[in-house]
């Protein structure tokens, strides 16, 4: 799992991510993020990286 920055335009990505959620209910937003996870997971396509990302996301929970 890469933890150094890979996204060329971090602020632009964050802006687009936020914009995608505009006008959605909490439930619709959560649905969107679930679809996004699947689409991104398929881009990664590496099982070990995916498992590492799941573990890292879970570990970041507060």
């Amino acid at each position, binding site marked *: 799992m890469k933890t150094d920055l890979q996204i060329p335009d971090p602020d632009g990505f964050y802006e687009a991510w936020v914009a995608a959620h505009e006008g959605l209910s909490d439930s619709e937003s959560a*649905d969107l993020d679930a*679809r996004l996870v699947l*689409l991104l997971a*398929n881009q990664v396509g590496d099982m070990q990286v995916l498992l590492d990302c799941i573990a890292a996301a879970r570990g970041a929970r507060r």
Partner: protein
Amino acid sequence: MTSTAEVWKFAPAYELPSWPFVVPPELATGERRRHPVVIAGGGLAGLTLACDLALRGIAVVVLDEDDTVGVRGASSRGICYAQKSLEIFDRLGIYERIRAKGITWSVGRTFSGADEIYSFNLKDESLSEQPPFINLQQFYLEWFLVERIGELAPGAIRWKTKVLHVEHGSDGAAIDVETPAGRYSLEAEWFVDATGANSRIRDELGLPAHASRHTDRWCISDVRFKKPFAVERWTWIDAPFNEGRGVWQHLMADAVWRLDYQMDEHADPDSISRPEVAGARLREQLGADVEFEFVWIGPYQYRDHLLDTFRVGRTIFIGDAAHVVCPFGARGGNNGIQDAANLGWKLALVLSGEAGESLVDSYQHERHAAAVENLRITSRTARFLAPRSAAEHRMRRAVVDLARRHEFARRLANTGRMAQPNDYPPSPWAPSGARSLQNVAVDGTSVVRLLAEGTRFIGLWVGASAEEAQALNDDIGARLPIAIRALDPNSALARHLGAGAGSVILVRPDAYVAARIDPATPAAIESTLRRALSLEPTS
């Protein structure tokens, strides 16, 4: 339209055969007999093993409490028989009856609402003489096996014989049984428990089965009707005609459809299986004008369990007595059948002295690993079909939404991964593991027909001449249970195996590849075979 006055029709009950209790020699003469193999339980696994052993010339005894096949009348339990099982039945001599009676299929489709979101055609990957699947009510299969055993070993099945107690010893077992003519005891060099999920033999041994119950609830309706449905496996993740819950639709013999409906997990089983309730569900699916008759209605919840060990001394557990998984993907009955095929040749060669006794431990090694894999695969399906939280519902919804538009997501929709022969992990008998070989045609015969000639391995020597193969066969084949044959490197079988000239492919009696020996020398073949048979290396 659904009328409150609708009268629900039921098909006449199946007339299943029954077989007579025959007074056994033990009761007739009072002598105590020691049998090479005694099997308790005449279900799929027990009957398959009995048939396999009878074909190998082993005097086998089957003890069955009942005098017929099937359970609870015509309720059909297992319905889908996978290619590997069909190949085993080809070797046992009942495949043609199964094919003639059953429903051959290879296409499966998965729906969400009104949309198809995933499909497969298992034929695409098949080189076997047998199709990917045939559907058949389980009692027919058991019936064919009983008749075949009757041809091979008349009297081997002892009906109306209930096991009361088993004394498990280090060199065999003593079994006390009860019959209509009284109690008696018999001894077995090897005792096999094939009495199913509720085995008392297993429980009396106190073996932990790691059982768990699932809360997901289903109700089967086996139904006959005249609506031209595709002869395919159709599954709905969320059917509009079942309040957004799952539905399975599959054809069996005698034009009987298996319609299996997922219910609310809190539903009352008596209520959901009442004819008027089950009938109303069918009306939703079939429409108002389709005439139908019930063959059977049955509510169920599934469960699983897995024994840590399938062998205790000379007692061996096969089929549901050893492992039970959720029903998805036909991994129950097929694995009982494959347990039997894994064990049969091993017992036969140990009994004849051609293999070391520890070969039987490879049954535990291989079939326990298979059961673990089947449990994992079926549990994943169960989890997809019955989300346990709002978050899980959301994750499944994401899969289904994307599957409508994107190819990659279709493969995530999980309504069952159809049973495949499990690969066996590396072991002392097969350091590279063992993989199933399909029943591919070769030289005017087939893998299965070659294996049916006797209880021995086959060594396929790729690129050798017939004379070379014969000379090696006369040498090694005279000392060990193997037949060496030349294999054309351009044959479909050699290409399927990916085997290069000069190598020998070692095929076990259960059609698993035990080793690829490359380069093949007589010494390497012999040592690999001795290892696969649990025999000491030659000095």
